[in-house]
């Protein structure tokens, strides 16, 4: 399997990625209350159509996207912002059987590549996106533009 498969995330041409985005892009940010409807969007069921499943939060000053990626090393993960598109791609490798292993009793963990793209709302700061891996959890912070952050307005007594 030395050939690069069409799914190899690092083999892709960025312009081709943009071409492909229209059909595979998630628009999870579109439902964020600050930008469209009023109140948080909820889904009736758990699960995602694409790996990895993500959770999205509003921290006030930023959107925070989290994904469980156990065993994915930082060097095997790529986070890109191109225009208003945020893309997470990478690969997860599971350890091959150790030298001298005589039996495999369970092999549930899966290795492979993944790629998921999100359309960002117009009102975020793409330069300020931060990503970190914390014990196998990807935490992506997508800051809002300062003018969009909610601020508390002081009520003055007359």
């Amino acid at each position, binding site marked *: 399997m030395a050939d690069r498969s069409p799914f190899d995330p690092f083999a892709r041409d960025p312009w081709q990625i943009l071409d492909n985005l229209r059909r595979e892009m998630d628009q999870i940010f579109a439902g964020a209350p600050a930008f469209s409807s009023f109140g948080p969007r909820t889904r009736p069921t758990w699960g995602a159509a694409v790996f990895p499943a993500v959770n999205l939060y509003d921290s006030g000053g930023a959107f925070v996207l989290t994904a469980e990626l156990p065993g994915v090393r930082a060097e095997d993960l790529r986070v890109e912002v191109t225009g208003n598109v945020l893309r997470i791609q990478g690969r997860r*490798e599971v350890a091959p059987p150790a030298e001298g292993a005589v*039996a495999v009793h369970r092999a549930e963990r899966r290795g492979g590549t993944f790629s998921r793209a999100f359309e960002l709302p117009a009102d975020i700061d793409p330069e300020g996106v931060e990503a970190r891996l914390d014990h196998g959890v990807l935490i992506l912070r997508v800051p809002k533009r300062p003018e969009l952050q909610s601020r508390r307005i002081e009520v003055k007594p007359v």
Partner: protein
Amino acid sequence: MADYQASTSLEPRQKAEVEREGSRPEPRFRPDVDILESGEEYIVYVDLPGVDERSVDIRVDRNLLTLDARLSVRPDPSWQPLLTEYRLGGFHREFQLSEDIDASRVAAKLRDGVLELHLPKSDRHRSRTVPVQAG
């Protein structure tokens, strides 16, 4: 056998919930594992995303291995959830191995949310090579 080539595209999978006890506020999930065996030991890999070194409890009793893990990487309580594609909770799993483990020599390592366990077989279970002498 797992695919070690890392050339396939990963598919999303639902986390399997362990039966919840009444007093538990949060679900616990059944982590994915690989279990390998050699003549001297069992090697176990466990996916534990969001679990740090202080939050794993490994118990070995003869040939019974019990894993419990609490979630330590959590969203800040002040964050407002907008979308939840996966659920949060700890992990729990038990295994009965075919041979007894030498609990005093168990080694555990946690990296990038994956626990690697080395469980040496107790001496009487270790397979030995018996030299055959020429007669």
